């Protein structure tokens, strides 16, 4: 507050104009969005009894159904394991090509980056739905969809890690006249391997969650049984499946998080 001769002037408050304009724009956007979609709180309140009824008809779950569902649950885990692994195997070479500091040919780098960006725009379940119709309903389209999805994320994360490695070993190897593949093997791989494995586990956690609903779009796993039971209005059976899935997801999450913490 002291306005002495050498005092710094008070910071000027930010300009109000752009902020007001942005706020106005947001309001217009929201009004437009609300009018375009059939949002209606009234419908929601009228729908509460229906939803409550759904939950009432789910209780108590048919516990004896859970042993029957062990097979499909294991299939779900298997889909996630295979999908993550295939994606990770494909991601390993691409993530080196998509790293600016190692990929010397600019065209290769740009192509790899673009491919990864395009792949990551497509949601896993969308791919699963397309694959399910394309190659036939079952576990295979699920594995393929998760593989493509995992490939996109793992390659992106790993290529960023490769870009952040210590350049010292790279330069040292280059100075000894090592070729490109030797450089990758001795300077890149040891530095990024723990991170790479951690990313794979992280994606595996995501994939387990996705794998439980793949069946809703015809791509295998427990979701197929869940969808069937919901469509047959066997809500007590559906509730048992949901609880079993919940348990499996929580357990696998906990194990995977533990492993990841030990890695890094």
């Amino acid at each position: 507050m002291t306005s002495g001769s050498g005092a710094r002037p008070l910071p000027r408050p930010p300009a109000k104009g752009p902020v007001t304009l942005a706020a106005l724009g947001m309001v217009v956007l929201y009004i437009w969005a609300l009018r375009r979609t059939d949002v209606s709180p009234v419908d929601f309140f009228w729908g509460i009894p229906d939803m409550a009824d759904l939950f009432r008809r789910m209780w108590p779950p048919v516990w004896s159904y859970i042993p029957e569902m062990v097979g499909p649950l294991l299939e779900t885990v298997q889909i996630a394991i295979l999908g993550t692994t295939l994606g990770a195997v494909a991601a390993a070479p691409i993530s080196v090509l998509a790293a600016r500091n190692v990929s010397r040919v600019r065209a290769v780098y740009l192509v790899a980056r673009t491919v990864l960006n395009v792949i990551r725009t497509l949601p896993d379940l969308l791919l699963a739905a397309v694959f399910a119709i394309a190659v036939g309903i079952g576990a295979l389209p699920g594995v393929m969809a998760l593989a493509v999805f995992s490939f996109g994320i793992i390659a992106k994360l790993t290529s960023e890690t490769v870009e952040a490695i210590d350049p010292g070993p790279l330069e040292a190897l280059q100075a000894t006249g090592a070729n490109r593949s030797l450089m990758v093997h001795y300077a890149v791989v040891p530095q990024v391997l723990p991170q790479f494995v951690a990313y794979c586990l992280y994606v595996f956690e995501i994939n387990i969650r996705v794998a439980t609903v793949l069946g809703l779009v015809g791509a295998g796993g427990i979701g197929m049984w869940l969808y069937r039971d919901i469509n047959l209005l066997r809500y007590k059976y559906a509730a048992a499946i949901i609880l079993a899935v919940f348990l499996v997801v929580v357990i696998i999450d906990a194990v995977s998080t533990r492993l990841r913490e030990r890695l890094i």
Partner: protein
Amino acid sequence: MNPPRATGQGTAGATTQAPGQGPGPRSPRYSHWWLARQAGVAVLVVLVYWWASAGIEFNVDRLLRGLGQLWTITRQMFYQPGPDWNYFPTVFEGLVESFNIALLGTTLAAVLAIPFGFLAATNLAGRTGAAVGKLCLNAIRAFPELLLAIVFMRGVGPGAFAGILAIGIHSIGMLGKLYAEVVEAIDRQPVEALQAAGANRLLTAWYAIVPQVLPDFASYAIYRFEINVRAATVVGLVGAGGIGKSLYFQLLAWDWSKVGLILLSIIVAVSVVDYLSATIRSRIV
């Protein structure tokens, strides 16, 4: 030059450190125990993959056949006959609906997650309170959007509203967790200053906490919006509105040139949203 970081795998340095003590935990390279463990892990990994691929009758032959079919269909989608541009108005309509679902769903979550964020923050809710809050958030997150969409469709009927509710509720899980981390990282000094000046709890929250957390909250909400744009293209597959509805019908009709156009449009639309969102986020924080 910086020396490379020392890692767990001991090299020469580790072995000279304790010459008389035999293999300690830091120099495990030549110990039998270490070798046995590595072998055990390797066997375990092989067994897991064997189990996984046997369980779903997954083999290379089936995979290659699937890839072949996929190649044929991809050609039909993008090359011959290629995307069906006459169908574009419908696709555009669907994309706009998906955008709206994502926008409104994210907003719903961004608002509803605020109380959860404060309740799950250790510095405000205490240890037990925060643990309970985080448990709630994890439980919410465990129910996938598609499942919630099916539940909400029972209440409000098929359509965009069910999708908004599904995405809105599911996103609370992640946003609440991120919000809590933001709240845990706030600077205590403004809070103490206001308390010293005699401000009540509401005023303290409004002048000392909200200004600190708002930019990060907004940034995370926009990040979640990126994720939800993708989710909003999917919920239509079970009937909850958006472009997924059109995709579902065209898939069932085996109309691959229309499917091609839908996929192409989604790729472009999601890329544009990602780009805009990243730009806005970089300006906020």
